[in-house]
């Protein structure tokens, strides 16, 4: 199953490179997304309903599967499934948006202007192909049972998303791409060090880097080496996840990439990195080092929250503002994961909510960009007059992302806070609350100024967004709001199992 899910987008990606006809390629993109989504959904439901965890059909094994005691390369446990589900759903929306987006970009070919820049787009084949490869790599991250493979998959996501960021061929996007590429590669190199340490720690146990093996023999691991391993893995994957102070690439990449790519980066890629961190924490937890890993996670989570808040104050570019909000949420997730217990449940729920909401917001930001041709907040006024539909999306996204109920994010924040208070972590709760308030104030200012008021340019011309580009965001927002009203039993089961699997602090 896992292998199928990995190979499917791989093949269609290759096909996308070969195909000549744009329409056909877009259709291929959509079909692949749908197929991937349906398979994933079925898998998750099967898991959530009947706890169908491992199976012969799951992944292929190091040694033939009829041998007992052999470990899979790829298979799904609860956390993997959860993130796979989010990724797949997100990709479905992104595919629809991308198809419409590419069509739009084709309709007025040639050079486009955007606050002063003139640029061309990369060939569409490269774009679609990389999108599909990207999906396959992320599926690999979710499914990997071997830390080495996990590492490889994460690095693959970096490399495959780089061309996507450089879709608009101009200086700024190129700079963003370069920074993204180098910073993330360096970070990932550190993660590789972490893997090595992990392996060294597991050397006596003979577990290698197999997650199952490590977890099984966790008591035998050398704690000092394990700590080193966690630190390296944390810094490595944390760089990819965008935790401060490793976040520096994130605002650039997210603001310069096309909206659909930003959505995928923020909604899916960061989750993959988060999964990497969680895996490391999982081993630490199993080895009884939960307090160690939890402390680090909480510390850097708070740091990210503070950084994001301070950079959102007086932010001048609304896509960068969204990027910083992603950093903020990654911080919240890290805090939740560090606190452990119920907070871990909150963190996972938050990850789901944030992915969908932020993706929708980036979609909306793409529409705003299309309506105003600028990312400067000061030049965007009176969106409500310019395009009521987009304004409604924009505002709804703001309310959802800041955790205004009904919203899954609200529940996540609440659960995490409750856990922090229950543990008597007063300082954590205090900083958490204060900077959440600061973030809220900063974002509120920006969203009010952009949405309301009178448009600057006269004569005012209405902007009618193509429905296909509005629908995905709408769909995601409805989902998140519904999540705030009702967490379905199967999802609850998956979340609980995932939280239980990762264990986390105490």
């Amino acid at each position, binding site marked *: 199953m896992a292998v199928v899910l990995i190979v499917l987008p791989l093949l269609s990606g290759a096909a996308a490179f070969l195909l000549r006809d744009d329409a056909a390629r877009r259709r291929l993109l959509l079909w692949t997304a749908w197929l991937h989504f349906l398979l994933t959904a079925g898998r998750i439901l099967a898991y959530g309903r009947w706890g169908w965890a491992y199976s012969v059909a799951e992944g292929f094994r190091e040694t033939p599967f009829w041998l007992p005691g052999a470990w899979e390369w790829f298979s799904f446990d609860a956390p993997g499934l959860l993130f796979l589900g989010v990724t797949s759903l997100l990709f479905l929306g992104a595919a629809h948006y991308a198809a419409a987006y590419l069509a739009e970009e084709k309709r007025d070919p040639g050079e486009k202007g955007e606050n002063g820049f003139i640029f061309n787009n990369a060939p569409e084949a490269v774009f679609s192909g990389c999108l599909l490869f990207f999906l396959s790599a992320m599926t690999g991250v979710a499914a990997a049972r071997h830390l080495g493979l996990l590492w490889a998959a994460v690095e693959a996501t970096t490399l495959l998303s780089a061309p996507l960021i450089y879709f608009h061929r101009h200086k700024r996007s190129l700079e963003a791409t370069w920074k993204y590429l180098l910073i993330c590669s360096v970070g990932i190199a550190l993660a590789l060090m972490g893997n090595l340490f992990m392996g*060294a720690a597991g050397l006596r146990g003979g577990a290698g880097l197999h997650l199952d093996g490590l977890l099984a023999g966790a008591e035998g691991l050398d704690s000092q080496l394990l700590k*080193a391993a966690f630190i390296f893995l944390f810094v490595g994957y944390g760089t990819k996840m965008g935790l401060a102070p490793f976040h520096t690439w994130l605002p650039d990449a997210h*603001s310069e990439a096309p909206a659909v790519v930003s959505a995928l980066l923020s909604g899916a890629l960061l989750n993959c990195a988060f999964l990497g961190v969680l895996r490391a924490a999982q081993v630490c937890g199993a080895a009884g080092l939960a307090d160690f890993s939890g402390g680090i996670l909480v510390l850097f989570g708070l740091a990210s929250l503070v950084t994001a808040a301070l950079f959102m104050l007086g932010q001048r570019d609304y896509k960068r503002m969204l990027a910083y909000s992603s950093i903020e949420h990654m911080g919240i997730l890290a805090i939740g994961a560090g606190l452990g217990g119920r907070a871990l449940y909150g963190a996972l729920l938050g990850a789901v909510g944030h992915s969908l909401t932020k993706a929708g917001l980036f979609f909306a930001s793409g529409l705003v960009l299309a309506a105003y041709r600028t990312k400067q907040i000061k030049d965007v006024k009176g969106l409500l007059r310019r395009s009521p539909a987009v304004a409604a999306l924009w505002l709804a996204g703001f309310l959802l992302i800041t955790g205004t109920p009904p919203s899954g994010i609200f529940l996540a924040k609440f659960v995490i806070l409750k856990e922090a208070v229950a543990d008597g972590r007063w300082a954590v709760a205090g900083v958490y609350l204060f900077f959440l308030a600061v973030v809220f104030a900063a974002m509120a200012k920006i969203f009010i100024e952009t949405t309301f008021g009178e448009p600057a340019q006269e004569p005012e011309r209405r902007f009618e967004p193509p429905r296909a580009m509005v629908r995905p965001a709408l769909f995601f927002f409805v989902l998140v709001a519904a999540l705030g009203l009702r967490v379905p039993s199967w999802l609850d089961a998956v979340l609980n199992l995932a939280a239980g699997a990762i264990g986390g602090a105490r």
Partner: protein
Amino acid sequence: MNTFAELTIVLIILLNMAMSVSGSLASCIRLAAAQGVAAGLLPLMAAGGAHGRAVAFAAFIIALKGLVFPWLMLRARELTGARKEIDPLIGYPASITLCLAAFAASAWLGSRLPLPEGGVAYIVPASLATIFTGFLLITTRVKAITQVVGYLVVENGVYIFGLALFVEQPLMVEMAILLDVFVAVFVMGIAIFHISREFDHIDTDALSQLSDWRRGEEG
């Protein structure tokens, strides 16, 4: 056998020093390649038994790091018509001092880490020092290519470190990792090419337009 290994280690360390002071781009690339080759040879000597798999693997690595990468980089350099100089942000004396300091620090660090005692002396410090040298190249050089070189050096260091720990990765994983590194360098090469086209040189200080530094607007 270990003597050879230790000689290689010394060679690697010296290469680090050389890189930190080498003034020309091409030589820097070649030094990195040489280091990669040395690293690739290391397992054959260290692990003693030069059995089939190890040999094949070493050959592959040497081919990659000793031939493919330098070729890619030099080609990129040709295409971009980058000037020969490295033009570092800090002077060479400072660089070499930092490199030495890095080596000392990694010696200390290696002594602190309770690593499984390999036969080869100084392999852990050497690997760490290599990594730091890589970072040194990335952070103190202006050109984009040097940063890629730095990245390669970091990779070398990590690889040596892996050898030091005897972490026997399954072949598939090793392959995946190597593939990633290869693709990384490839993609970076492409990026450099684009950079040179857009900015008509590849100094990264041109690549600092994207920032949130609100100069001048107080409060």
